[in-house]
Structures are given as structure tokens and as C-alpha cells.
């Protein structure tokens, strides 16, 4: 049988993975959720046909969205995670004993259900007692909070569909309000290689810059995401991700990671020229 999953990365480029079998297909109130089993990438989660997580390379994304802010401010205790229904981000956060409380807000309960059943490698931490799950609109949740969190991680889908509201100025502004005076906001920032993604990335960055005094962008190499080159936004009220990085302190924690290390932390903020130009473009 010749079964392939294909995602359109641009009008002129597509990316395919050989599929062994389909494990689940659920139509939720918000989107279509599919899980596939593959030989090359292990289990794969897609939402509305867009690839979200593969078992083979999810560690890169989850390392980078979590450890960069955690190494910048090791005193983080209370975290809000928006999106992240697969649980990978929470799994990484739970490795820090200093974190006391995680609120996770995912709009689609079915994503969590499916992931708990089929993606135990990421969803394993969702039952932890420090984790509090809310199934509602992220924007709605965050606008009712004030000065509460040390860190907000926005692990969203793309800026079309259910994740659209998480790329807006009102969302970033409300995140600012929900953070305390040392608060950090990290969000997945799309990519600039393909034009359709570049527009959303530039707009997101511009809006974050208007809200936060410190707003930087860092990168990671994620093979299964469009272009393989993915960006994250780091915004903060006080801490600079490089100047305030205490490499010794993080390394003492002894957290074993597959992608992240403190050298790479610094290097990740060194961006290619074409990315820099696009960021300065606005």
C-alpha cells in the first residue's frame, strides 16, 4: 500500500511522509484532528491537515519554547500555557521543580483527549497535580488575569483557524497585563522563508514590539515544519534573554535535553540576515 501524508508548504512545494496507518480521525467543534503512525517519524498529529507534532522531532520545538525562558529567569513559579494540547510543552515545564503552578488553556478538549490516547510521549504530564487544564478560548482566559504569571507560553497553531486570535495585538496586550513585572512571553512565531508565513510572523513581531520593552526573536531547526527553519518570539518586561542568562545556574539543574544547551541558547538569537531584514522591514 502506498499511503502518504502530504502538507502543502507553499503553492509550489509540498512535504510528504510515508504513512503506515491512520490511528485516529476526529471532527471536533473546532477542527479535524488526525493521528498517523509512520516508520520515518513515528506518530504524527495533524490539525485540519496541518502537521503539528511528530514523535521524531517534537523535542526540538518543546525544548526551545520552554528552556529559553526558564534559563533566562530560573525563579519562574507560575506559568500560563496557551494551546499546546499535545502536552509536550507542559512535559518540559514539569522538569523544573521550582515551578509550582501551570495553567494550561486549550480551546479544543478533543485535541487533549486524542493526544492522551495516542501521543503519550508528549501528553504524559497532563495528569500532574501542578497542571490545571482549562478548555476555553485563550484570549478570553488571559484577558481576565492581571499581574499573575511569571511566564506565558503561547504554543499555538497557525494564525488562521482557531489560533487566529492568538496573533493579535489585543492578545499580546492582555498577556502583558496578565504577567507580573518580571514577566516573559514566548510564542511560536512561524517562519519567514515562505511568503504566506512571513506576513504573519512580521505582523506578530511588530505587535509584540509595541507591547513589550524587550522583544527578540530566536530560531530553531525543525525538520518537519515548513522550510525547516522555525522562529520563536521572546518578549519580556525586565529580563534580556542573553544578558540575564546565568549559564552556570541552569547547568547546575542537571536537566538533560536533546536539543537545548546554554551555548545554543545564545546562538539561537543570532539570526540570518534575510530574517533580520524582514523583521526590520515593518
Amino acid at each position: 500500500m502506498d499511503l502518504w501524508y502530504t502538507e502543502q508548504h507553499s503553492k509550489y512545494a509540498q512535504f510528504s511522509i510515508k504513512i503506515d496507518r491512520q490511528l485516529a480521525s476526529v471532527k471536533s467543534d473546532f477542527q479535524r484532528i488526525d493521528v498517523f503512525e509512520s516508520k520515518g517519524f513515528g506518530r504524527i498529529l495533524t490539525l485540519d491537515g496541518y502537521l503539528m507534532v511528530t514523535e521524531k522531532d517534537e523535542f526540538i520545538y518543546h525544548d526551545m519554547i520552554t528552556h529559553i525562558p526558564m534559563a533566562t529567569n530560573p525563579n519562574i513559579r507560575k506559568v500560563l500555557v496557551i494551546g499546546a494540547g499535545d502536552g509536550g510543552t507542559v512535559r518540559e515545564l514539569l522538569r523544573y521543580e521550582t515551578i509550582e503552578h501551570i495553567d494550561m488553556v486549550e480551546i479544543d478538549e478533543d485535541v487533549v483527549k486524542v493526544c492522551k490516547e495516542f501521543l503519550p510521549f508528549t501528553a504524559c504530564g497532563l495528569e500532574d497535580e501542578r497542571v490545571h487544564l482549562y478548555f476555553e478560548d485563550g484570549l478570553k482566559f488571559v484577558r481576565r488575569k492581571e499581574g499573575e504569571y511569571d511566564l506565558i507560553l503561547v504554543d499555538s497553531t497557525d494564525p488562521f483557524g482557531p489560533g487566529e486570535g492568538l496573533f493579535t495585538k489585543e492578545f499580546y496586550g492582555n498577556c502583558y497585563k496578565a504577567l507580573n513585572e518580571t514577566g516573559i512571553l514566548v510564542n511560536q512565531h512561524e517562519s519567514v522563508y515562505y511568503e504566506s508565513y512571513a506576513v504573519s510572523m512580521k505582523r506578530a513581531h511588530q505587535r509584540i514590539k509595541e507591547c513589550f520593552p524587550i522583544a527578540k526573536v530566536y530560531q530553531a531547526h525543525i525538520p518537519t515544519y515548513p522550510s525547516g527553519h522555525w522562529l520563536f518570539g521572546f518578549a519580556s518586561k525586565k529580563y534580556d534573554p542573553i544578558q540575564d542568562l546565568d549559564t552556570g545556574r541552569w547547568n547546575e539543574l542537571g536537566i538533560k535535553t536533546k536539543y537545548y544547551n546554554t551555548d545554543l541558547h545564545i546562538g539561537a538569537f543570532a539570526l540570518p540576515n534575510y530574517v533580520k531584514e524582514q523583521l526590520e522591514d515593518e
Partner: protein
Amino acid sequence: MNILLQQKAPIHEALQRHKLNRVVPFDVPGHKGGRGNKELTDFLGEKCLKLDVNSMKPLDNLTHPVSVIKEAEEIAADAFGAKAALFIVNGTTASVQGMVMSVCKAGDKIIMPRNVHRSAINALVVCGAVPVYVNPGVNKNLGIPLGMSVIEVEKAIKENPEAKAILVNNPTYYGICSNLREIVRVAHRHNIKVLVDEAHGTHFYFGENMPVSAMAAGADMAAVSMHKTGGSLTQSSFLLCGEGVNPDYVRQIINLTQTTSGSYLLMVSLDIARKNLSLKGKEIFKKTVELAKYARGEINKLGGYYAFAEEIMDGDTTYDFDPTKLSVHTRKVGLAGVEVYDLLRDEYGIQVEFGDISNFLAIVSAGDREFEIERLIASLSEIKRLYGKDDISGMLDHEYINPDVAMIPQKAFYSVKKSLPIQDSIGEICGEFVMCYPPGIPILAPGERITEEVIQYIQYAKEKGSFLTGTEDMNVENINVVLR
């Protein structure tokens, strides 16, 4: 309403047949199904251009319907509970003018509130009818004009027993309804026709637990802006006739000014939108009301903003309230409605319907999704946090100025005029319109005395960023006044 009948859409069906027939066009429009204008076809789509056709025997003719348009109009009349329904493609402005001109001739009096849309006063300029203004109540707290009080209507009739018609604006832009049934009773007792500008009330005919519709209240005519909340294309509208008027005469009046090349895109949109509302309206407007209600609750929790609803009903000038309207009072946030309107668009990419001195209005419809409502609420929360002011002194708080009608609108509009800087025009008779658009309710109409209060209002509206229109001077710095 006959549900079996409502499943039909005669114009839609006729256009489908026409497409299948592959008729060779040697008539207008000259783009010939889009082949003659490739760029437009690429932009709008071939399907759309192929349906942009002219009247022909199988498709009927809007100026004199005898087949499919006639049938579609009859089904629409059934849907609205009207004696007749006319398809209008020149906007609800044409419906309103058609109503006024069907019952008033030059010199006839028509009773109306002053907070009507410009289209109604335009009709007076065209046909020469004389307005008798009834002061709508004003909600001082919100700074908005309300509906018509039955007592005021009775008084106006007593003073003007020869009046031919009453025009009621129901609901107002803000969702305020008058006691329509009682106004109809009073007017009919005096042989006066009741015309209802129902531009914002399409859903009254199809939703549940809505304020009474014009036709159900026994009004003689109603202008229904199907394109506003009914789902048809912009510029399409219905003119409804009740028992008291002859629809064939009304069509003659409409034909005086309506295009003879009625757009089938607009007509088919009316046909399909009517079908959709007849079959699914209850469900659609239930969802709309739920969304609006949720938004009001959340906006009121933000503090400062006041999204008002049924609680402002007073049994008189606010007899009923349209629950789909999301009108928000902003003055206590320290911002004019129009300032919030501008911030929402410029900073947050959200376009609401209009903002005036003290309020803004967001249109909620079945086309909205929860997360867009969340964006609006979250943006308002941000606007309050970032731009709100504690000091609200110095903010103008009135929205309605009682007009002093010194000359009938037609005479003033067509008289010899001179242009004066607005601030130097106190005491003169205005020869044109001045209004903020939207909402398009004139601050000054032709024939009205210009007062200091009016000029203050215009200047304040300008300062706050309202888009002023109506004057011949495109910069709205000079005003045409009647030469004495």
C-alpha cells in the same frame, strides 16, 4: 408563512436554467459573461460574471414583473406577512423614498422623528413634502435619541390633522423600538398612513422573541434592508406593502427613480437570503442574540463601558429593544464613541458599524464566531487600559438637537444660496445637509435654522474624528445657506 412555498427561490432557479441553456449573448452587459473583462473576471470569479445578465423573457423584468420576479416577490410577501413585497436594487434609500413618495405629494405633511436617516429627508427634498418633526425622547445618560412617544404622535396629529403619513424609525440604529402597534392604531384612526423605516429590523420577521415587525403591527409600508442583517448583497432591499396601499401604484413611484437594469446578482441575493431566513431564521437569530448577549455581559464586566439592553425600556420612547444590537456607551471610559471606533480599526483591525459622540455600535450576526467576539471584548479591555481617561469633564454629552424648521426642505434646497464658513452661519437657514456618516442622521437638514449649539456639535464631532459629510464643500468648512 407557507413553509413549502418558502423552499422555492424562483429567480435562483431561473438563473440556473439560464446558465444551462448556454444562450449566446448579443445583448448587454457587454462583458459577455466576463470574457470581455478578464481582470474583473479573475478578481470576482467567472461564476459571478456569468450571472450578471440583463432582463429577458425567461428572467422577467424588475420594472414590470410578470413571471419569475413576480413569483419571487409573492413568496417574499408571504415570508414577511405583507400584502406585497417589491425587490429593490437601489438600496434601502430607494425603499424609504418609495414609501414617502407613494403617500405624499408636494405640500403634504408627514410626521416623523428628526433622527431619521438622510434618505427620508432626501425624499422630502425630491417630492416637496413638509416634515412635522416629533421630538424623539433622549436618554440623557447615554446621549442617544430614542423612539417616538405615542403621546407626542397624538399631539402632532391633533396639531396637523391634514398630515398624510407618519414615518417611524423602528428600530433605531441603537436598537430602540417605539410602540408601533399603538402608533398604527392612533394614525389609522385619523386616516394617516404609517411608514416604517425598518432598515435595521429584518430579523424582526424571522427571529423569535423579537420586537413586533411593521407588517405584524399593521403598518402600511416598510423599508427592510435585507442586506444589513438578512444576508443579501449590499444595496439590495425590500419594500413591503400592507393592506392600506396599492402596490402597483408603489411600483410606478419606484420606477420613477430606480434603474431599468436591475442587477440579477442583487435580486438573486434577495431571493436566496429570503429563503434562508424563512427556513433557518429562528436558529440564525437565536445564535445572534446569544452572541450579542454574551458580548454585552462581558463588556459590562470590563468596567467603564456600558453595553445597554432591555433594562433601558420605559414603556414609552423606549418601548422595546432589539436584542441583536450591540450598542456600547463609552463616555465613562473617557473616550468618545468615535474614538473607540477609530482605535478598534486602526490599532486592532476591528471594524465596527459606527461611533458617535458617546457610543459605538457593533453589528453582530450569524456570520460571527465566538472567537471574533472574544477579540472585540479583549480589544475593548486593552483600549480602556491604554487609552482610557479618568477625567470625563469636557466631553459633550448630548446627541440630539431639537431642530428649528424655518423653511420646507425642498424650497431651502433649491433656493439661491451662498456659502459661509460654518462658524459664521449662526441664525441662517441651512440649504443642505450636514451629518456624520455613519450613522447618516443629519445634524442639519435643508430648511433648518443654524444655531450656536449645532455649530458647537459639528466642531466637537470633527475634533473627535467623525467623518462629516453632506455639504457641497468637500472639506466641510463652509456651509450653503439660503440667501435672504
